[in-house]
């Protein structure tokens, strides 16, 4: 258990370190495209989540804002 936890923390730290590799504002055109937004079309996603939450025991982990910010 402790080994798994340590490996997970190391993996997260490695990912976080990698995050320092910058995508510059002038390179963000694609990331700003609507198809690259994690939240997608919130209205439609909410309707689908509403249906699924009434048919499954699971919940949560839905998309949050992010990924498609082209602002600079």
């Amino acid at each position, binding site marked *: 258990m402790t080994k798994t936890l340590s490996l997970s923390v190391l993996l997260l730290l490695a990912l976080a370190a990698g995050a320092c590799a910058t995508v510059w504002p002038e390179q963000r055109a*694609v990331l700003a495209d609507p*198809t690259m937004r994690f939240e997608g079309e919130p*209205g439609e996603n909410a309707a*689908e989540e509403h249906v699924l939450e009434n048919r499954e025991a699971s919940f*949560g*982990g839905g998309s949050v804002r992010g990924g498609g910010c082209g602002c600079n």
Partner: protein
Amino acid sequence: MQLSGRLQRARALGLAGAALLGLAAGSARAQVVEVDARGTVFVEPSKTSKLTVVTPAATVAAQPAEWLDVHVAYEADIVSGATEAIKAGPIADVVTGATKFSDVRNEFRGGAQITRRDTHLAVDYSYGTESDYHSQGLAVTAGTDFLQKNTQLEIQYARGFDQVCTTNFAPSTAPSGRTRLDSSKGCFTKDPLRASRAVDLDTFQVGWSQAWTPVFATQIVLTGGLQHGFLGNPYRGVVIAPTGEDALENHPENRARGALSLRGKYFIKPISAAATASFRVYRDTWDIVGETYELEFEKYVTQAIRLLVHARYYHQNGALFWSDDYTGGEPSHGPRGQYWTGDRELSPLSSYLLGFRLLAGMQGTPDHRIFSALLRFQGSVAFDALKTNLRDFTWSGKTPDDTLAGMLTLGVRGEF
């Protein structure tokens, strides 16, 4: 009396919303006001227990100042169909029939978001009402962007204050002596045969989005939830004795839930398409473990038209106290004599979802508006088919036939 109170609250919310939007529109004539309207029809065909849900929804959002966004929304669920009120398993010699029902849920929402440089803070409130259930929810969200906006963190806390109508059983009444509701008549009134019971919901969520390259981004979302109160279905009875006696569904009063999602998005430049892969794992204190796998592909058909197709697979085991039949004597393990359920969502199951969405957009300018009014217009049509495989669940030994559902959504959005 109760109805009058609800109407007054709904009217007050409507007036507050209209005032908020009036303020927004009045001070933001040069800013964007966005109107989103959509309608969803959900149909689950069955010979005996067909379900139809029609959901009209509308949202109006405005930006009165550069740092402030406000929105109000309305949504209704118009539900009609039939369902088996008493769950029996294959052992008891009980045949149950479906009972027709219909209901309307109205939900009003409103919220505001303040944005300062790289940080945002949002507050949302919702109020929902139907004949047998009232809900109020408050959510606070805070987020920030850093590392050249390549890293985004968002944290949210939501609190639900819900009330569900049940029969007026005393807390001291043994669960096996509690009766189910036969209708919502008298709910949320002074009817001595009805009681209102609280359901408290706390949800925490934290999300981390990261852009790794100009065409690749990932997201991790961790969600935790606590539920406390009456967590069963007040209409559902479960046969708990071989002679056919039933009692109100009896679920534990507490449930802690957790989910972790991982997503990756990659834009394939040569074909102008984005591919998304998602995985979610879920676990709760009722010992349910669920896993979700999802693939999504969205492509520009033309500059103005996008087509999205997605596929989803989900599977879960049953709750610790799940059984298809509670009359077969003492179970070899598990608290199945203490709790009982007729909820098929707590049984072992898997499901497949396949869907598409076609979205068309038009972009205008302040000098050349679409339909002489709009800066931007977007129309969409989406369809999803959902097939559920129930591994254990039966109605008196018969496999349910309402396991294939379809959902059609039509939406329009305009920016003024």
